[in-house]
Protein backbone atom coordinates (compact mmCIF):
# COMPACT_ATOMS: atom_id res chain seq x y z
CA UNK A 1 0.00 0.00 0.00
CA UNK A 2 1.42 3.31 -0.97
CA UNK A 3 1.52 6.27 1.36
CA UNK A 4 -1.59 8.36 1.73
CA UNK A 5 -1.97 12.00 0.84
CA UNK A 6 -3.80 14.58 2.91
CA UNK A 7 -6.46 16.32 0.84
CA UNK A 8 -8.95 19.06 1.66
CA UNK A 9 -11.83 19.63 -0.72
CA UNK A 10 -15.25 21.17 -0.49
CA UNK A 11 -18.20 18.84 -1.01
CA UNK A 12 -21.65 20.35 -1.26
CA UNK A 13 -20.43 23.55 0.42
CA UNK A 14 -18.89 21.64 3.34
CA UNK A 15 -15.14 21.44 3.80
CA UNK A 16 -13.90 17.86 4.19
CA UNK A 17 -10.41 16.48 4.71
CA UNK A 18 -9.14 12.96 4.37
CA UNK A 19 -6.04 10.89 3.78
CA UNK A 20 -6.28 9.00 0.50
CA UNK A 21 -4.05 6.76 -1.56
CA UNK A 22 -2.64 8.48 -4.65
CA UNK A 23 -4.85 6.56 -7.06
CA UNK A 24 -8.15 6.84 -5.16
CA UNK A 25 -10.82 8.39 -7.36
CA UNK A 26 -13.21 11.11 -6.32
CA UNK A 27 -16.02 8.62 -6.88
CA UNK A 28 -14.58 6.24 -4.28
CA UNK A 29 -14.04 9.07 -1.80
CA UNK A 30 -17.60 10.34 -2.24
CA UNK A 31 -19.22 6.92 -1.98
CA UNK A 32 -17.04 5.06 0.50
CA UNK A 33 -15.72 7.83 2.74
CA UNK A 34 -18.58 10.33 2.70
CA UNK A 35 -21.44 7.88 2.03
CA UNK A 36 -22.65 10.16 -0.76
CA UNK A 37 -23.94 7.34 -2.96
CA UNK A 38 -25.89 9.43 -5.46
CA UNK A 39 -23.03 9.29 -7.95
CA UNK A 40 -22.91 5.69 -9.13
CA UNK A 41 -20.06 3.45 -10.17
CA UNK A 42 -21.18 2.02 -13.51
CA UNK A 43 -18.29 1.45 -15.89
CA UNK A 44 -15.47 3.17 -13.93
CA UNK A 45 -14.07 4.11 -17.35
CA UNK A 46 -15.74 7.44 -18.06
CA UNK A 47 -18.19 5.96 -20.54
CA UNK A 48 -21.53 5.55 -18.76
CA UNK A 49 -21.97 8.94 -17.06
CA UNK A 50 -23.54 7.59 -13.86
CA UNK A 51 -20.83 9.25 -11.74
CA UNK A 52 -21.15 12.74 -13.27
CA UNK A 53 -20.66 15.52 -10.69
CA UNK A 54 -19.72 19.20 -10.85
CA UNK A 55 -16.13 20.12 -10.03
CA UNK A 56 -15.49 23.86 -9.70
CA UNK A 57 -18.61 24.46 -11.77
CA UNK A 58 -17.77 22.06 -14.60
CA UNK A 59 -19.38 18.64 -15.16
CA UNK A 60 -16.76 15.88 -14.80
CA UNK A 61 -16.56 12.14 -14.32
CA UNK A 62 -15.91 11.44 -10.64
CA UNK A 63 -14.48 8.06 -11.69
CA UNK A 64 -11.79 9.74 -13.81
CA UNK A 65 -10.89 12.36 -11.19
CA UNK A 66 -8.24 11.53 -8.61
CA UNK A 67 -9.18 12.88 -5.19
CA UNK A 68 -5.60 13.95 -4.52
CA UNK A 69 -5.69 16.00 -7.71
CA UNK A 70 -8.84 17.85 -6.53
CA UNK A 71 -7.08 19.60 -3.63
CA UNK A 72 -8.82 22.91 -2.90
CA UNK A 73 -11.57 22.30 -5.43
CA UNK A 74 -15.31 22.37 -4.89
CA UNK A 75 -17.54 19.37 -5.67
CA UNK A 76 -21.29 19.43 -6.13
CA UNK A 77 -23.10 16.09 -6.06
CA UNK A 78 -26.79 15.36 -6.47
CA UNK A 79 -27.09 15.35 -2.66
CA UNK A 80 -26.10 19.02 -2.62
CA UNK A 81 -28.68 20.23 -5.11
CA UNK A 82 -31.72 20.37 -2.78
CA UNK A 83 -32.13 24.11 -3.33
CA UNK A 84 -31.14 24.12 -7.00
CA UNK A 85 -33.89 25.48 -9.25
CA UNK A 86 -32.70 23.68 -12.37
CA UNK A 87 -32.41 20.31 -10.62
CA UNK A 88 -35.90 20.72 -9.12
CA UNK A 89 -37.37 21.46 -12.55
CA UNK A 90 -35.51 18.52 -14.08
CA UNK A 91 -36.66 16.16 -11.33
CA UNK A 92 -40.29 17.19 -11.84
CA UNK A 93 -39.95 16.78 -15.59
CA UNK A 94 -38.24 13.37 -15.28
CA UNK A 95 -41.08 12.10 -13.07
CA UNK A 96 -43.74 13.52 -15.35
CA UNK A 97 -42.17 12.10 -18.51
CA UNK A 98 -41.37 8.71 -16.95
CA UNK A 99 -37.72 9.39 -17.76
CA UNK A 100 -36.45 6.80 -15.30
CA UNK A 101 -37.19 3.28 -14.28
CA UNK A 102 -34.45 1.72 -12.16
CA UNK A 103 -32.96 5.13 -11.39
CA UNK A 104 -29.32 4.07 -11.40
CA UNK A 105 -28.30 6.57 -14.06
CA UNK A 106 -30.62 9.35 -12.90
CA UNK A 107 -28.25 11.35 -10.60
CA UNK A 108 -25.74 11.52 -13.45
CA UNK A 109 -28.47 12.35 -15.96
CA UNK A 110 -29.69 15.22 -13.78
CA UNK A 111 -26.22 16.71 -13.26
CA UNK A 112 -25.39 16.38 -16.97
CA UNK A 113 -28.73 17.94 -17.94
CA UNK A 114 -28.16 20.80 -15.52
CA UNK A 115 -24.73 21.40 -17.08
CA UNK A 116 -26.26 21.29 -20.56
CA UNK A 117 -28.97 23.82 -19.65
CA UNK A 118 -26.34 26.15 -18.19
CA UNK A 119 -24.69 26.26 -21.63
CA UNK A 120 -27.87 26.19 -23.68
CA UNK A 121 -31.12 27.26 -22.03
CA UNK A 122 -33.35 26.09 -24.90
CA UNK A 123 -31.78 23.03 -26.53
CA UNK A 124 -33.30 21.33 -29.56
CA UNK A 125 -33.87 17.56 -29.59
CA UNK A 126 -30.58 17.12 -31.42
CA UNK A 127 -28.72 19.37 -28.99
CA UNK A 128 -30.03 17.34 -26.05
CA UNK A 129 -29.02 14.12 -27.81
CA UNK A 130 -25.50 15.48 -28.32
CA UNK A 131 -25.21 17.11 -24.92
CA UNK A 132 -26.44 14.02 -23.06
CA UNK A 133 -24.75 11.39 -25.26
CA UNK A 134 -22.33 10.58 -22.47
CA UNK A 135 -25.05 9.38 -20.09
CA UNK A 136 -26.26 5.87 -20.74
CA UNK A 137 -29.70 4.64 -19.70
CA UNK A 138 -30.73 1.03 -20.13
CA UNK A 139 -34.40 1.49 -19.17
CA UNK A 140 -36.02 4.39 -20.95
CA UNK A 141 -34.79 4.31 -24.54
CA UNK A 142 -33.78 7.97 -24.14
CA UNK A 143 -36.78 9.66 -25.77
CA UNK A 144 -38.40 10.31 -22.40
CA UNK A 145 -35.16 11.78 -21.06
CA UNK A 146 -34.94 14.10 -24.05
CA UNK A 147 -38.57 15.14 -23.53
CA UNK A 148 -37.93 15.74 -19.83
CA UNK A 149 -34.85 17.91 -20.39
CA UNK A 150 -36.70 20.04 -22.94
CA UNK A 151 -39.76 20.34 -20.71
CA UNK A 152 -37.58 21.48 -17.81
CA UNK A 153 -35.81 23.97 -20.08
CA UNK A 154 -39.17 25.44 -21.09
CA UNK A 155 -40.33 25.77 -17.47
CA UNK A 156 -37.03 27.31 -16.36
CA UNK A 157 -37.12 30.19 -18.79
CA UNK A 158 -40.90 30.57 -18.89
Amino acid sequence: MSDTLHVTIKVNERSVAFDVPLTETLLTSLRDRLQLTGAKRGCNQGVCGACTVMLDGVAVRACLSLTANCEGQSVLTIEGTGADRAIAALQDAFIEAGALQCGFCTPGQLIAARALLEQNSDPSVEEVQKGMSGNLCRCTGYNKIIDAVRTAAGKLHA
Partner: protein
Amino acid sequence: MDTGLFRPASVAEALALLARLPDAKLISGGASLVAMINARLAEPAALVSLAGIEELKEIAEAPGGGFRIGAMARHRDLAAESRFSGTLAVLQMAAAQIANATVRNMGTIGGAVAHADPGLDYPPALVAADARIEIAAAAGRRRMAAAEFFVDWFTTALQPGEMVSAVHLPAARPGIGLYHKFARVSGDYATVSVALTMVREGSAISTRAAIGGCGPTPLMLAEANRLLSGDPTAEDLRRAGNLLQAAADPVDDVRGSAEYRLMLIPRMLARAFDEARLHAGAAR
Protein backbone atom coordinates in the same frame (compact mmCIF):
# COMPACT_ATOMS: atom_id res chain seq x y z
CA MET B 1 9.86 11.03 -1.19
CA ASP B 2 9.47 9.09 -4.43
CA THR B 3 5.72 8.67 -4.10
CA GLY B 4 2.92 11.18 -4.12
CA LEU B 5 1.46 13.89 -6.26
CA PHE B 6 3.68 16.70 -7.44
CA ARG B 7 2.43 20.04 -8.75
CA PRO B 8 5.15 21.84 -10.66
CA ALA B 9 4.53 25.46 -11.68
CA SER B 10 6.62 25.33 -14.84
CA VAL B 11 7.66 22.92 -17.59
CA ALA B 12 11.24 23.11 -16.31
CA GLU B 13 10.11 21.99 -12.85
CA ALA B 14 8.04 19.18 -14.37
CA LEU B 15 11.07 17.94 -16.33
CA ALA B 16 13.24 18.09 -13.21
CA LEU B 17 10.67 15.93 -11.39
CA LEU B 18 10.59 13.41 -14.26
CA ALA B 19 14.38 13.20 -14.10
CA ARG B 20 14.31 12.58 -10.36
CA LEU B 21 11.33 10.18 -10.43
CA PRO B 22 11.78 7.88 -13.43
CA ASP B 23 8.65 5.89 -12.62
CA ALA B 24 6.39 8.92 -12.29
CA LYS B 25 3.56 9.51 -14.74
CA LEU B 26 2.39 12.89 -15.94
CA ILE B 27 -1.30 13.63 -15.40
CA SER B 28 -3.18 16.36 -17.22
CA GLY B 29 -6.95 15.82 -17.54
CA GLY B 30 -6.83 12.24 -16.30
CA ALA B 31 -9.38 10.99 -18.82
CA SER B 32 -7.07 8.27 -20.16
CA LEU B 33 -4.66 7.69 -17.28
CA VAL B 34 -7.29 7.30 -14.55
CA ALA B 35 -9.32 4.96 -16.76
CA MET B 36 -6.16 2.85 -17.09
CA ILE B 37 -5.57 2.96 -13.33
CA ASN B 38 -9.18 1.84 -12.76
CA ALA B 39 -8.66 -1.03 -15.20
CA ARG B 40 -5.42 -1.92 -13.37
CA LEU B 41 -3.37 -1.29 -16.49
CA ALA B 42 -1.35 1.39 -14.68
CA GLU B 43 -0.33 1.76 -11.08
CA PRO B 44 1.86 4.83 -10.79
CA ALA B 45 3.65 5.41 -7.50
CA ALA B 46 4.09 9.07 -8.28
CA LEU B 47 2.17 11.53 -10.39
CA VAL B 48 3.25 14.88 -11.74
CA SER B 49 0.19 17.07 -12.30
CA LEU B 50 0.45 19.63 -15.08
CA ALA B 51 -2.61 21.53 -13.84
CA GLY B 52 -0.58 24.39 -12.36
CA ILE B 53 1.48 25.20 -15.46
CA GLU B 54 -0.13 28.24 -17.07
CA GLU B 55 2.00 28.09 -20.23
CA LEU B 56 0.37 24.79 -21.17
CA LYS B 57 -3.18 26.15 -21.14
CA GLU B 58 -2.94 28.74 -23.91
CA ILE B 59 -4.19 28.47 -27.47
CA ALA B 60 -2.26 31.28 -29.12
CA GLU B 61 -2.00 32.52 -32.69
CA ALA B 62 1.59 32.21 -33.87
CA PRO B 63 3.31 35.35 -35.21
CA GLY B 64 3.82 33.86 -38.68
CA GLY B 65 0.31 32.36 -38.85
CA GLY B 66 -0.95 29.12 -37.39
CA PHE B 67 -1.41 28.31 -33.72
CA ARG B 68 0.47 27.06 -30.72
CA ILE B 69 -1.90 24.88 -28.69
CA GLY B 70 -0.67 24.26 -25.15
CA ALA B 71 -0.67 20.62 -24.10
CA MET B 72 -3.28 21.27 -21.41
CA ALA B 73 -5.85 22.73 -23.85
CA ARG B 74 -9.08 20.82 -23.25
CA HIS B 75 -11.03 19.04 -25.95
CA ARG B 76 -13.96 21.32 -25.04
CA ASP B 77 -11.95 24.44 -25.88
CA LEU B 78 -10.64 23.06 -29.16
CA ALA B 79 -14.14 21.90 -30.15
CA ALA B 80 -15.38 25.46 -29.61
CA GLU B 81 -12.36 27.16 -31.24
CA SER B 82 -13.73 29.54 -33.86
CA ARG B 83 -10.31 30.72 -35.11
CA PHE B 84 -9.53 27.41 -36.84
CA SER B 85 -10.55 28.41 -40.36
CA GLY B 86 -10.00 26.71 -43.73
CA THR B 87 -7.93 23.55 -43.52
CA LEU B 88 -7.51 23.84 -39.73
CA ALA B 89 -11.21 23.07 -39.20
CA VAL B 90 -10.15 19.41 -39.29
CA LEU B 91 -8.88 19.71 -35.71
CA GLN B 92 -11.97 21.49 -34.40
CA MET B 93 -14.16 18.86 -36.03
CA ALA B 94 -12.14 16.01 -34.52
CA ALA B 95 -12.20 17.58 -31.04
CA ALA B 96 -15.99 17.93 -31.18
CA GLN B 97 -16.37 14.17 -31.77
CA ILE B 98 -14.23 12.99 -28.85
CA ALA B 99 -16.19 10.92 -26.32
CA ASN B 100 -18.91 13.17 -24.85
CA ALA B 101 -19.38 16.64 -23.39
CA THR B 102 -18.33 15.67 -19.84
CA VAL B 103 -15.15 13.89 -20.92
CA ARG B 104 -14.34 16.81 -23.26
CA ASN B 105 -14.40 19.02 -20.15
CA MET B 106 -11.56 16.90 -18.75
CA GLY B 107 -9.32 15.53 -21.50
CA THR B 108 -6.46 17.50 -23.02
CA ILE B 109 -4.73 17.41 -26.40
CA GLY B 110 -1.31 16.79 -24.83
CA GLY B 111 -2.64 13.84 -22.88
CA ALA B 112 -4.31 12.34 -25.93
CA VAL B 113 -1.26 12.80 -28.14
CA ALA B 114 1.11 11.27 -25.58
CA HIS B 115 -1.31 8.38 -24.95
CA ALA B 116 -1.31 7.60 -28.70
CA ASP B 117 -4.23 5.18 -28.68
CA PRO B 118 -4.81 4.48 -32.40
CA GLY B 119 -8.57 4.81 -31.88
CA LEU B 120 -8.28 8.44 -30.77
CA ASP B 121 -9.57 11.27 -32.92
CA TYR B 122 -6.64 13.69 -32.75
CA PRO B 123 -3.81 11.63 -34.28
CA PRO B 124 -5.19 11.37 -37.85
CA ALA B 125 -6.46 14.97 -37.68
CA LEU B 126 -3.01 16.22 -36.65
CA VAL B 127 -1.32 14.21 -39.41
CA ALA B 128 -3.74 15.56 -42.02
CA ALA B 129 -3.27 19.10 -40.73
CA ASP B 130 0.54 18.73 -40.93
CA ALA B 131 0.78 19.63 -37.24
CA ARG B 132 4.04 19.49 -35.32
CA ILE B 133 4.36 18.17 -31.81
CA GLU B 134 6.48 20.28 -29.44
CA ILE B 135 8.56 18.06 -27.17
CA ALA B 136 10.11 19.49 -24.02
CA ALA B 137 13.30 17.87 -22.75
CA ALA B 138 15.98 18.91 -20.30
CA ALA B 139 18.16 19.89 -23.24
CA GLY B 140 15.50 22.15 -24.72
CA ARG B 141 12.48 21.96 -26.99
CA ARG B 142 12.13 20.52 -30.43
CA ARG B 143 9.30 20.05 -32.88
CA MET B 144 8.47 16.89 -34.76
CA ALA B 145 5.93 16.26 -37.52
CA ALA B 146 2.87 14.43 -36.17
CA ALA B 147 3.39 11.77 -38.86
CA GLU B 148 6.77 10.89 -37.28
CA PHE B 149 5.71 11.37 -33.66
CA PHE B 150 3.29 8.42 -33.63
CA VAL B 151 5.48 5.35 -34.01
CA ASP B 152 3.48 2.32 -32.84
CA TRP B 153 0.52 1.15 -30.72
CA PHE B 154 0.44 3.50 -27.70
CA THR B 155 4.02 4.45 -28.53
CA THR B 156 5.40 7.83 -29.52
CA ALA B 157 8.81 9.30 -30.24
CA LEU B 158 8.92 10.67 -26.67
CA GLN B 159 12.03 9.53 -24.80
CA PRO B 160 12.10 8.92 -21.04
CA GLY B 161 12.10 12.23 -19.21
CA GLU B 162 10.45 14.12 -22.06
CA MET B 163 6.95 15.53 -22.33
CA VAL B 164 4.58 16.99 -24.89
CA SER B 165 4.44 20.73 -24.24
CA ALA B 166 2.38 21.93 -27.22
CA VAL B 167 0.96 21.18 -30.64
CA HIS B 168 1.74 23.58 -33.48
CA LEU B 169 -0.65 24.06 -36.38
CA PRO B 170 0.56 25.61 -39.64
CA ALA B 171 -1.20 28.69 -40.98
CA ALA B 172 -4.71 27.94 -42.22
CA ARG B 173 -4.96 27.70 -45.98
CA PRO B 174 -8.07 28.42 -48.03
CA GLY B 175 -10.10 25.30 -48.49
CA ILE B 176 -11.52 22.86 -45.98
CA GLY B 177 -10.51 20.43 -43.29
CA LEU B 178 -12.88 17.73 -42.13
CA TYR B 179 -12.98 14.70 -39.92
CA HIS B 180 -15.38 11.79 -40.38
CA LYS B 181 -15.64 9.06 -37.79
CA PHE B 182 -17.38 5.73 -38.07
CA ALA B 183 -18.17 4.41 -34.60
CA ARG B 184 -20.63 1.92 -33.15
CA VAL B 185 -22.25 4.54 -30.95
CA SER B 186 -21.78 8.25 -30.37
CA GLY B 187 -18.60 8.94 -28.45
CA ASP B 188 -16.95 5.58 -29.00
CA TYR B 189 -13.42 5.22 -30.31
CA ALA B 190 -13.25 5.18 -34.09
CA THR B 191 -13.77 1.90 -35.92
CA VAL B 192 -12.37 3.83 -38.87
CA SER B 193 -11.89 7.56 -39.21
CA VAL B 194 -10.80 9.82 -42.06
CA ALA B 195 -9.15 13.18 -41.55
CA LEU B 196 -8.75 15.25 -44.66
CA THR B 197 -7.49 18.70 -45.59
CA MET B 198 -8.07 20.11 -49.04
CA VAL B 199 -6.41 23.31 -50.21
CA ARG B 200 -7.85 25.16 -53.15
CA GLU B 201 -5.16 26.44 -55.54
CA GLY B 202 -6.87 28.13 -58.46
CA SER B 203 -8.73 25.35 -60.25
CA ALA B 204 -6.55 22.63 -58.70
CA ILE B 205 -6.75 21.08 -55.24
CA SER B 206 -4.12 19.77 -52.88
CA THR B 207 -5.26 17.03 -50.50
CA ARG B 208 -3.85 15.28 -47.44
CA ALA B 209 -5.84 12.30 -46.14
CA ALA B 210 -5.08 10.28 -43.02
CA ILE B 211 -6.91 7.16 -41.84
CA GLY B 212 -7.41 6.45 -38.12
CA GLY B 213 -8.34 3.27 -36.29
CA CYS B 214 -6.72 0.97 -38.86
CA GLY B 215 -3.37 0.04 -37.43
CA PRO B 216 -0.80 1.23 -34.92
CA THR B 217 -0.53 4.80 -36.19
CA PRO B 218 -2.47 7.15 -38.48
CA LEU B 219 -2.08 6.04 -42.07
CA MET B 220 -1.15 8.60 -44.71
CA LEU B 221 0.39 7.81 -48.09
CA ALA B 222 2.18 10.34 -50.29
CA GLU B 223 1.00 8.46 -53.38
CA ALA B 224 -2.65 8.56 -52.26
CA ASN B 225 -2.37 12.30 -51.53
CA ARG B 226 -0.87 12.81 -55.00
CA LEU B 227 -3.79 10.95 -56.63
CA LEU B 228 -6.23 13.12 -54.64
CA SER B 229 -4.56 16.37 -55.71
CA GLY B 230 -4.58 18.39 -58.91
CA ASP B 231 -7.81 17.57 -60.74
CA PRO B 232 -8.59 14.03 -59.55
CA THR B 233 -10.89 11.78 -61.52
CA ALA B 234 -13.21 9.13 -60.07
CA GLU B 235 -10.56 6.58 -61.04
CA ASP B 236 -7.89 8.49 -59.07
CA LEU B 237 -10.15 8.48 -56.01
CA ARG B 238 -10.76 4.76 -56.39
CA ARG B 239 -7.03 4.07 -56.70
CA ALA B 240 -6.21 6.20 -53.66
CA GLY B 241 -8.77 4.26 -51.62
CA ASN B 242 -7.30 0.96 -52.80
CA LEU B 243 -3.76 2.07 -51.92
CA LEU B 244 -4.78 3.06 -48.40
CA GLN B 245 -6.75 -0.15 -48.01
CA ALA B 246 -3.72 -2.22 -49.09
CA ALA B 247 -1.38 -0.38 -46.72
CA ALA B 248 -3.69 -0.54 -43.68
CA ASP B 249 -3.02 -3.04 -40.93
CA PRO B 250 -6.16 -3.13 -38.79
CA VAL B 251 -6.92 -5.69 -36.09
CA ASP B 252 -10.11 -7.49 -35.08
CA ASP B 253 -11.64 -6.02 -31.96
CA VAL B 254 -15.04 -5.24 -30.46
CA ARG B 255 -15.36 -2.22 -32.75
CA GLY B 256 -15.18 -4.29 -35.91
CA SER B 257 -13.23 -6.99 -37.67
CA ALA B 258 -10.12 -6.17 -39.64
CA GLU B 259 -11.96 -7.19 -42.80
CA TYR B 260 -14.83 -4.83 -42.04
CA ARG B 261 -12.43 -1.96 -41.36
CA LEU B 262 -10.70 -2.56 -44.69
CA MET B 263 -14.06 -2.39 -46.45
CA LEU B 264 -14.80 0.92 -44.78
CA ILE B 265 -11.58 2.68 -45.80
CA PRO B 266 -12.29 3.43 -49.50
CA ARG B 267 -15.95 4.15 -48.80
CA MET B 268 -15.20 6.63 -46.03
CA LEU B 269 -12.39 8.21 -48.02
CA ALA B 270 -14.71 8.75 -50.97
CA ARG B 271 -17.42 10.24 -48.80
CA ALA B 272 -15.01 12.64 -47.10
CA PHE B 273 -13.31 13.55 -50.37
CA ASP B 274 -16.58 14.27 -52.18
CA GLU B 275 -17.83 16.41 -49.32
CA ALA B 276 -14.54 18.30 -49.09
CA ARG B 277 -14.46 18.94 -52.82
CA LEU B 278 -17.97 20.30 -52.78
CA HIS B 279 -17.12 22.67 -49.94
CA ALA B 280 -13.67 23.60 -51.18
CA GLY B 281 -15.25 24.60 -54.46
CA ALA B 282 -17.96 26.62 -52.76
CA ALA B 283 -15.56 28.24 -50.31
CA ARG B 284 -13.27 29.97 -52.78
